């Protein structure tokens, strides 16, 4: 059977500051190497809801504050509620860094009013004040809450001032090995809700963690074609070597 996936890249011209494109390139290549047809749709301010609804997989990345503000109104009031329904019907999604925060209930800055989020994820984020250090650096963790990937490791780079706290509906994605993770306190990184994942590992999370890319692709196919999918394995030698080298150098 010939499979096809439509991937929605949310706000590529606004929420894509930290090499986020790496995730799309990774998903696209790992599909095409398996002869799964892929279409990437750029979904931005001017794009209609009907386009968004054609997606089998969603991705949204990190941004500068000003660009995040430009996207916020459209995300919270127009596309957010639709994305929430899609995620509640098990469409897989990846929200990285600023998008992870924006998918929660709110962001409380050190000064000024709370910035509302789309309320897709049961979480909130607070900035602890100028005195507290930003959480910056290479980081690693071990997946605890995706049954298929439990015990596998993630490597990445984090750079965030906000501290994120998960509510009961959101499970942590991974246990921190090195780095700050969600809040620098509870030892967890990222979050999982149904088939949607949030992570502070910004920019290109997937290329060095290809198991996560494959997990998203497999879930997207299962939901779309309503059957159990076992992806054709790929060798992924270069991915594993780069992953291991980083893991070894920081843990």
């Amino acid at each position: 059977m010939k499979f096809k996936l439509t991937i929605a890249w949310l706000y590529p011209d606004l929420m894509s500051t930290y090499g986020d494109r790496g995730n799309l390139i990774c998903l696209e290549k790992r599909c095409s190497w398996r002869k799964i047809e892929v279409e990437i749709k750029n979904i931005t301010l001017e794009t209609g809801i009907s386009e968004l609804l054609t997606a089998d997989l969603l991705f949204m990345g990190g941004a500068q504050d000003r660009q995040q503000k430009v996207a916020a109104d459209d995300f919270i009031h127009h596309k957010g509620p639709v994305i929430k329904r899609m995620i509640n019907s098990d469409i897989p999604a990846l929200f990285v860094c600023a998008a992870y925060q924006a998918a929660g209930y709110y962001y409380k800055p050190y000064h000024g009013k709370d910035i509302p989020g789309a309320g897709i994820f049961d979480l909130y984020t607070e900035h602890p004040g100028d005195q507290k250090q930003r959480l910056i650096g290479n980081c690693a963790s071990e997946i605890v809450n995706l049954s298929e990937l439990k015990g596998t490791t993630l490597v990445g780079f984090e750079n965030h001032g906000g501290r994120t706290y998960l509510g009961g509906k959101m499970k942590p994605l991974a246990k921190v090995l090195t780095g700050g993770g969600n809040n620098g306190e509870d030892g967890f990184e990222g979050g999982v809700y149904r088939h949607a994942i949030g992570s502070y590992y910004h920019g290109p999370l997937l290329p060095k963690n290809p198991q996560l890319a494959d997990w998203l692709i497999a879930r997207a196919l299962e939901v779309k074609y309503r059957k159990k999918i076992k992806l054709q394995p790929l060798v992924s030698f270069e991915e594993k070597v780069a992953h291991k080298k980083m893991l070894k150098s920081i843990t």
Partner: protein
Amino acid sequence: MIRQTAALIIGQAVGQFSRLLNLGAGGTWPGELALSIDPHILKNLAGHIRKGIVIVAGTNGKTTTTLMIKTILEANGNSVINNSSGANLINGITASLIRQADIWGRLNCDYAVLETDENSLPAIVEEITPNAVVCLNLFRDQLDRYGEVDVITEKWALAIKNMNKKTALILNSDDPQIAFLGKKYAGKTVYFGLNVKKLQKYSFEHATDSIFCPNCGRRLKFAAIYYSHLGWWQCLKCGLKRPDPEFFNWESPLPGLYNKYNTQAAAAVAKTLGVEDGLIAKSLKKVSPAFGRQEELVHQGKPLKLMLSKNPAGFNESLRTVIGLKAKNILLVLNDRIPDGRDVSWIWDVDFEMIPAKVQITVAGDRALDLGLRMKYAGLKYAVETVLSNAINKAAGQAEEKLYVLPTYSAMLDIRKIISGKKIL
């Protein structure tokens, strides 16, 4: 005065000492020490420069533009001092001036042309009053170290608002956020940009940072694009638009679109300082590449061109230039040390996909494996060499004609060290 003299003597002694021991040419710590003894030493030293100071800021092009300005001013009969790109923070700039001053703080020169780091520009224009400040461009660069483009723009806008009105502000009309800085300034503002039609594109590359109106936030309309977010822009909502540049058709002495911008900026400064058109054109022709920027070297009998490439906008332009020069062999070197930025995520914003399949690619550096992975996902064939000296030897050995080397900052210094056998900066 006593404090300043003490600062100078100690600063100079430390500089001499570190040069003697070959710890790098004087470095930045003589400046650091002198500033801790006399916090206003920069201001005092600057006051002794006979005709004045030019400050050059921006993500890409600082070193080349500084060199162009220096070349023109010297041709006009001035003695000019400058700093190196490794010394473009306030301590490095101070060190560069101390090195050339006598113990009374007198500097025997007409002009100082100084490049400054993005984060240091506000502190520098607060301390001294330059004749001209050039803002070249702002692109995403070492986000873990500098912060985002918008954050830097805000700091610059505030600094420029409070700047002494005697300073001429030289701005890139094609970079929306840079051009908008002119609206905050009551002093003299001069714009430069590009008007060449045949180099225009009509779609963006992925890495753009300023495509929304800096005034009202609406998406800007671009009638033409040169690279990244540089182009002919306007806002259809609030009416803000690209100012008409006064400097746009000066001929660039070096390849690359980015050098065309650097040339316009240098000409704008020279004209503002009273140099005649004919002399500007003539002396621009004499400009040779700056340290590591399209610099030509020879290694094991093979010609080699070194092109510093440290962020997506710069890297894309280096690649375009190299491909335009019909490169057959490319060595890409990615480090993640402090001067490079620890975060290498940005390589996924570089359009490596434009490299033709027949080009032979070698990847090296601290993060060679990440770069290799990026090549794999760009569908390119490549060789990985984790030891830099082996990488250069092999790549140069294989090169049919010239080897083009695109390194990050610390990698560029390492390569020069390997080739020359000693530390240079």
